[in-house]
C-alpha cells in the first residue's frame, strides 16, 4: 500500500534522505523513528508531495506520487507536525473546504464535516474561527481534515504533539480502529511507547539512511539481546543508533 523506492533528497552537499526503500502492507501501522534531524519529516514531505525528491519515488495506494500526484494524494490523508490552518475559517468551513478539495460534493462534505467534528469533540466549536481554538483543538481539527475523504493511506507526522492525555488516548484508539478497517498508517513519532503499543512494523532512520526495519521482535533480535530478556523499544532504539547502523535493513 505504501512503497518508498530509493527515495533521496539532497541539499547541495547535505544528504537529508539517502536511498530509502521500504514497503508497508495494507492495514499495517508502520512506526517511523529516528533522532531529531534524522530525515523523518523530509521523507514524509516527499511522500505526500510537499517536497520534490532528488531521486526515487513514493507509491501510495498504487499511485506514484511523482507520476500521478493527484491520484496518490486522493487516497492519502496527511497530518503535519505543525498543522497550520486558515485562521479566518470556522472549524466547519475548514473541514468542508478540505472535503471539497478532495472532491466531495457540498452536501456530503458538510455531512462528513459535522460527523467528524462530533467524533473529535469539536461539535460545539463548529462555528468558531480556527484562530480562537486551542493548540490541541487545532491538532484534532487537522486530524479530522486528514480523514474527511476516508483515505486508504494515512501519514501522521508527530500526531501526539499538543494533545492532552485524553486526546492522545483517543488518537491511539482511532489509529487501531482505522488499521482494523484496512487503512495503512505511516506514523512518525518520538514516543517510543506509542510506537511500541501501536506499530506492527518499525523503521529507524539515522542521518538520512534507514538503518533497520522490521517487527518489534525483529528489532530486538537484531539489536542482540544476549541475556534472553525482552528489552524495551527504547533500549533497542538506543542500541541500534549507538551501534552506528550495524543492523541495516
Amino acid at each position, binding site marked *: 500500500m505504501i512503497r518508498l523506492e530509493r527515495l533521496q533528497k539532497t541539499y547541495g552537499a547535505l544528504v537529508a534522505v539517502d536511498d530509502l526503500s521500504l514497503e508497508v502492507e495494507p492495514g499495517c501501522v508502520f512506526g517511523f523513528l529516528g533522532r531529531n534531524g534524522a530525515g523523518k519529516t523530509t521523507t514524509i514531505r516527499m511522500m505526500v508531495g510537499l517536497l520534490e525528491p532528488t531521486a526515487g519515488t513514493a507509491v501510495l495506494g498504487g499511485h506514484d506520487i511523482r507520476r500521478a500526484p493527484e491520484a496518490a494524494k486522493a487516497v492519502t490523508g496527511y497530518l503535519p507536525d505543525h498543522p497550520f490552518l486558515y485562521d479566518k475559517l470556522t472549524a466547519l468551513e475548514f473541514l468542508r473546504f478540505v472535503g471539497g478539495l478532495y*472532491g466531495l460534493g457540498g452536501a456530503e462534505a458538510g455531512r462528513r464535516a459535522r460527523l467528524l467534528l462530533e467524533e473529535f469533540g469539536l461539535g460545539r466549536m463548529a462555528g468558531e474561527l480556527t484562530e480562537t481554538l486551542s493548540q490541541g483543538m487545532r491538532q484534532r481539527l487537522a486530524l479530522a481534515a486528514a480523514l474527511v475523504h476516508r483515505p486508504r493511506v494515512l501519514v501522521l507526522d508527530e500526531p501526539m504533539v499538543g494533545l492532552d492525555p485524553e486526546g492522545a488516548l483517543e488518537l491511539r484508539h482511532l489509529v487501531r480502529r482505522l488499521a482494523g478497517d484496512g487503512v495503512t498508517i505511516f506514523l512518525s513519532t518520538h514516543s517510543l511507547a506509542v510506537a511500541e503499543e501501536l506499530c506492527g512494523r518499525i523503521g529507524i532512520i539515522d542521518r538520512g539512511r534507514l538503518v533497520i526495519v522490521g517487527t518489534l521482535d525483529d528489532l530486538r533480535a537484531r539489536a542482540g539481546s544476549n541475556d534472553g530478556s525482552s528489552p524495551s523499544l527504547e533500549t533497542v532504539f538506543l542500541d541500534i543508533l549507538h551501534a552506528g547502523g550495524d543492523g541495516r535493513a
Partner: protein
Amino acid sequence: MTLAALLQPRLLSLRNVVRRDRLRAVTVTGLVGLFWLACFLLFTRVLGYFHGLGTFGPFLTQRLLALLFLTFFGVLLVSNTVTALTTYYLAAEVTPLLAAPLSYRRLHHARFLETVVASSWMVLLVGLPALLAYGVVYRAGPLFYAGALAVLLAFLVIPAAVGVLITTGLVLVFPARGTRDALMVGVGLAVAALVVAIRFLRPERLADPSALVGFASFLGAFGATGSPYLPTTWAAETLLPLLGARPGEPLFYFGMLASTAAMLFLTSAAVVERVFLIAWSRAQTGHVRAGAAERPLSRWLAVLVRPLQGPSGCLFAKDVTVFLRDASQWSQLLLVSALVGIYLYNFSALPLGDGTPLALAMRDLATILNLGLGAFVTTAVAVRFVFPMVSLEGHAWWILRTAPVPLAQLWWSKFWIGYLPLVVFAELLVATTNGLLHVPSLVTVAFLLTLVPLMAAVVSLGLAFGAAYPRLDTQNAAQIATGFGAILYMLACLALIALVVALEAWPVSRLLCQARSIAGVAATRTAALLALAAVTGGGTSLGAFWVAKRSGLRALARLGGT
C-alpha cells in the same frame, strides 16, 4: 538581562537577512535612498519657492513646519497604537520574554523601542529630508541640525507612549483581536480621509501666486488655533529660531518637549509594569462565540459556488471568506477607494477645455497616457490584492499542496479571483476617465480591448512575483504589499505598461486624428488601426501573461508549506 541583550535577536536577524541576500539589501537600500533624495529635492524646491515669495513667503514656510509636525503626530499616534498592540500583546516573542526572569519594566523598555522603530521609520523617511531641506533653504548652522535630531527623538517618544497607554487600555477592556481589526479599519478610514482632505486643498493652486492668499489665510487660521499645549507647537517653536527664521525661546520649548516625552515614557512604563500580566492574559483569550451554528456568509457562499464544478468552488468560497474576514483587506479597500476618487477628480479638474490647439494636443497626450495611467492605478490595486494572494495562504499552503488538486488548477483559481474584479475595475476606470476627457468612442474601444489581455498579464505577474517572494510569516496584506517582491512586481508592471502604451501610441494617435478631422471616412483604415493596436498591445500582454504563468507555476511548485 540588559536592554541590548533583549534587542539582540532583532538586530542579529537583520544582520543575517542582509548577509544572506546582499542583492536584496543593496536594492532596497538603493530604492530607499532614491526615495529619500526625491523627498529632499521636492521639499527643497517647494520651500525655496515659498521662501522667495516676498513678505509672506517665510510666514508660509514656518506655518508649513507646524503643519508637517501636526501631520506626523497624527500618523504616529495611530501607527504606534496599532503597532503597540502587536509588539506588546500579540507578538509570539513576548511569551519567552515573559517566561524569562525579566522585570515588566525592562520588557516594556524593549517593546517600547521596537514599537517606536516599527511605527516611526516611515515618518523619518519623509521627516528627515524635510528638516534637512529647511536647513538648506534657510542656510541654517549646525545647531539647527543637532536640534532637529534632538527634537525628532523626543517627538517620536510622545505618540509612542500615548499609543502604548491607549492600546493597554483597549486590551484591558476589549478582546485583542477585535481591537486590532477595529483599529485597522479605523486606520484605513483615517488615512483615506487624510488623502482626500489633502487633495481637496487643491495644492496645484499654490503654483499660482494669486491663489496663495487663500492658502496663506488657511495656514494663518491653522496657526492661530495651534495650541501652546501641543507637542507639535513645541517642536516647531524649537526649530524656527534655530533656523534663524525668527527670534524665540528654543530652549524653553525643547524643555517642554523633552520633559513631556520623559514623563509619558515613565508613565507608560509604570502602567505597563502594573497591568501587563492582566492585559497580556486578556489578549490571549479570543472572543469565542461558543456556537455550532453555521455563519451566514458560509451559507450564502455555498449557494453562490454551487454552479462551479470540483475544487474550484471550494477554493473560491475559501478565498472570498478569508478576504471578507480580514480587517487589513478592508482597510486597504478604503484607501484604494479614496485614491480612485482622487484619480477621477483629477481628470475632471484638468484644464483642457478651452479649444486651443495646445489644449487639443494636451488632450491627445492625456488620452494616450490615460491607458497607461489607468493600467498603472489598477496595478497599484493588484499589488495590494493579487500580489499577497500566495503569501496569505501562509503556512497553511500544505493543505492545498497535499490535496489532489493540480497546481495549475490552484493557479487558475487564484487568477480568476484576481482577474475578474481587476479587469472590470480597469475597464470602468478607463471608460470613465476617457468620458471625462471626451475621447472618441473608437479610441475607448481600443483601450478597453487592450486592457483585457493587459490585466491578465498584470494578474499573472502578481501571482508569479507573489510566489517567488512569499512572506508566509505575516497575515497582514498591507505589510506583504510593501516588501521587496512587491517593489519588483510594480517595476515589472510599469515596464510592461510603458511598452504597451508605446506600441499603441501611434495607432491611437492616428485614430484620434481621424476621429477629429475625417469622421465617417476610411472604415477599413480604422479597422486596420484598431487591429494594429490590438495585435501589438495584446500580443505583448499575452506574451507577458504566458511567461509569468510559467514562472508562477514553477515558483508555486517550490513552495513547501507546513
